[in-house]
């Protein structure tokens, strides 16, 4: 436990085998992220947790913590890169916050607030992605999917059901449901599955509970996501 590295000038202890992200989270320090979740294996795909270690870019969720590392995290330059990644995500999907049940509890939205994103900047794709309301208890809203694969990992590794997967490559990547019809109702997915609660955005939603929490009392209303890793708080659920 005597091993440590420097994160934005602060000493962060780590145990052997921990990643930079795990050690930072354990110390209550926020490194922005979308696809990382403490309960799942790192994915390294959203790139939001990019940091500079000894002048080189690395994703904090996949790089091992090492003694003497000098990690640059919340500098204006790196947050600007993160802002660009967020803008790309916002224009690739249909993220219309005023009509979204996840608004106020959404990790994508909260991270964009934290990074000070005022505009999507790029031209919008406005993709056409029909939703899947076939399941009696859960709605799939593909317009909001950011391809983090947390539902894929939860369904495969925790629920042992393999309900979700990503198909296609590059711009054509999209979330699919593992049933012959492609509909969620034709799988053994249940609202009690871990995969039903792990979505950081409003792509997987339990039905009939939307907008239950008034504005002002939602997860990130009182406490911005950058403060949510401080001791005594939990990031999700």
């Amino acid at each position, binding site marked *: 436990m005597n091993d440590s590295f420097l994160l934005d000038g602060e000493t962060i202890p780590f145990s052997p085998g921990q990643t930079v992200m795990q050690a930072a989270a354990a110390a209550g320090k926020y490194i922005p992220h979308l696809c990382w979740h403490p309960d799942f294996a790192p994915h390294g795909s959203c790139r939001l947790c990019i940091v500079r270690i000894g002048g080189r870019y690395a994703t904090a969720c996949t790089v091992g913590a090492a003694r003497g590392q000098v990690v640059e995290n919340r500098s204006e330059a790196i947050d600007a890169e993160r802002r660009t990644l967020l803008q790309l995500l916002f224009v690739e999907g249909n*993220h219309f916050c005023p009509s979204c049940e996840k608004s106020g509890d959404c990790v994508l939205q909260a991270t964009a607030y934290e990074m000070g994103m005022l505009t999507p900047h790029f031209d919008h794709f406005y993709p056409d992605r029909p939703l899947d309301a076939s399941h009696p208890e859960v709605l799939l809203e593909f317009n909001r999917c950011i391809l983090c694969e947390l539902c894929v990992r939860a369904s495969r590794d925790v629920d042992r059901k393999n309900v979700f997967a990503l198909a296609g490559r590059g711009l054509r990547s999209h979330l699919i449901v593992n049933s012959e019809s492609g509909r969620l109702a034709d799988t053994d997915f249940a609202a009690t599955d871990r995969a039903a609660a792990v979505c950081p955005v409003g792509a997987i939603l339990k039905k009939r509970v939307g907008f239950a929490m008034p504005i002002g009392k939602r997860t990130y209303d009182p406490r911005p996501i950058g403060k949510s890793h401080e001791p005594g708080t939990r990031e999700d659920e």
Partner: protein
Amino acid sequence: MSDEHARAAPPPRKLKLATVSLAGCFGCHTSFLDIDERLLPLLERIEFDRSPLTDIKHCGPCDIGLVEGGVCNAENVEVLREFRAHCRVLVALGACAVNGGLPAQRNNIALGELLQEVYRTGHGLAAGSRIPDDPELPLLLNQVHPVHEVVRIDYFLPGCPPSADAIWDFLNALIEGRAPTLGPGLLQYD
């Protein structure tokens, strides 16, 4: 500076402010009016040019232009370009101006199909309903666009609507020549 000089100094020029609602719901203008009695000190420092509050029809040379709403038809494009040509600082005010908002939810439906369903085949229509074709109606664009996809925008103030406090802070910063920033709790997309 002597008292005499202080008295002689002209008051600072009032800044000219123009506002417009394109493909919006006037919610952002309503939120602007929600600054309530702060409107009075604001009027000491600005005067309105074209705005729903003055009913001036065309925008003259202005210091600040606030644009609510996205761009959904040919008239919106023309007005937006007029604002860009006349306003030193142009601001996208609210969700629809920033990302298209609610009107842009029609963007992945073909315009012809949309008009057919709304005016011809949808529910609750009067007998003989037809698609409006009065030549005075501005033509719809195929898609609704955020204002930054049509002209250069200097500042963005998101929110549906942005709160009165956000608009107040933002305008004060602009008037005082500071770069506007949204303080804690004032940056909201919903």
